[in-house]
């Protein structure tokens, strides 16, 4: 479909100059940036909501939370959940039906992930060809997708523990679903921090998520 990574230079939405290849389809770029905004709102408002009744012996500094007070944070959270959910649904549907996931994120084996993580730690990041993800990236992106799915489902479970009580039971009941929700948030934040750090280390990847194009590797 619109996923043109293997047809670099073919006629398409991007000007097909010889030195450029298209690596991020438009749908992926749009949903990526909407997701950035949605996650930012959901996480920062969620921290404020957490502060109203902390699970553990710490609170998030008010300055990095959104909403001003519990009621305001809840308004942000329950407004942005639609942005996160609808955008995520479009992304997943696109990724599955266009073959985008299969091409970019699959296959991924534990051995290859360990190998590439080790390489990355040695400073030999195998990401010269921006159209190809290394195994560590595949694992991180798949992990992020799964973590957000768990985050959304556990969120629904604590939002509707009566109407969706089977889902809540699946997460170990209302109180445990809160812990799952928190853990999934922590994992998402962790992966995002690593992701942003990696983009900072390989800055040429940044404009590609806006223009969709990258310089062809010689």
């Amino acid at each position, binding site marked *: 479909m619109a996923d043109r990574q293997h047809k670099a230079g073919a006629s398409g939405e991007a000007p097909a100059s010889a030195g450029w290849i298209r690596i991020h389809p438009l749908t992926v770029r749009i949903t990526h940036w909407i997701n950035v*905004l949605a996650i930012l709102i959901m996480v920062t408002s969620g921290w404020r909501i957490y502060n109203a009744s902390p699970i553990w012996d710490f609170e998030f500094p008010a300055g990095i939370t*959104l909403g*001003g007070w519990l009621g305001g944070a*809840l*308004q942000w959270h329950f407004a942005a959940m639609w942005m996160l959910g609808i955008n995520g649904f479009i992304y997943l549907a696109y990724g599955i039906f266009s073959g985008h996931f299969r091409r970019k994120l699959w296959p991924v084996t534990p051995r290859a992930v360990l190998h590439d993580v080790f390489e990355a730690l040695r400073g030999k990041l195998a990401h010269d060809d921006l159209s190809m993800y290394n195994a560590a990236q595949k694992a991180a992106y798949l992990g992020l997708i799964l973590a957000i799915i768990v985050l959304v489902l556990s969120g629904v479970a604590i939002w*509707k523990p009566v*109407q969706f009580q089977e889902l809540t039971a699946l997460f170990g009941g*209302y109180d445990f679903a809160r812990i799952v929700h928190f853990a999934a948030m922590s994992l998402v934040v962790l992966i995002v921090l690593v992701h942003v750090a990696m983009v900072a280390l390989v800055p040429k990847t940044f404009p590609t998520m806006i223009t969709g194009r990258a310089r062809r590797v010689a």
Partner: protein
Amino acid sequence: MNEQGGRTRTRGLVKLRDLAAPGQIERIERRLFLKRGLTLGGLAMLTGCDVTDNAAVDKVLWAMSRWNDRVQAGLFSQTRLAPEYPESAITKPFPFNAYYGIDEVRMVDGDAFKLELSGLIRDKKPWTLRDLYALPQASQITRHICVEGWSAIGQWSGVPFRDFLARIGADTTAKYVGFRCADDYYSSIDMETALHPQTLLALRYGNDILPPKYGFPMKLRVPTKLGFKNPKHIMAMFVTNAYVGGYWEDQGYNWFSGS
């Protein structure tokens, strides 16, 4: 562009020139431009006050909350029951919670008390506690979930609210049931929820008459809604088609707040 040309431009660009290898400036400039464009929204949001105090944003958030009311009303079903628990699951002690501290709990004189009825109700005769205790009672052990996130399991007994609404001839085609309380609290619920089989006009907690800290003389127990939709110290109730809101709801908590 020669070196001199570069210096006559902004200080920032000179710095960039110093840092960047020749030929990269254009790309860096473009990247910065894109970065700025993209983070404008993020920046505005992170500076906090700008966005959260903005009237237009506030309006959107309230509109989304009204939309969420409709979604939750759609999800709600009168045959969908809140889970009930064994006595061993009851949280002890059951937490006190109100918009004030426990030392400010209102004391209501039970002997003088009469529940006032108004609005779209056929028989508006006020009810004494004695008369209410004499009605058929039901009991439930359900989870109270606070908007703050904590939860606790308690046991309440009292008059099934739908039976009471039928007894007083409430117009059950009306939209809302509203409550006014001795502690100046007020709230309202949708008629669908009012008619849910587990919605209870609670008169007892455990085996005791509802103690003041849990809302004497009566509390509306709604296990399908968050805790703040369970008004305590109810003095008056009314049936209406006009939106009522509530103490917390008017400040921004979602009105429906279904569980």
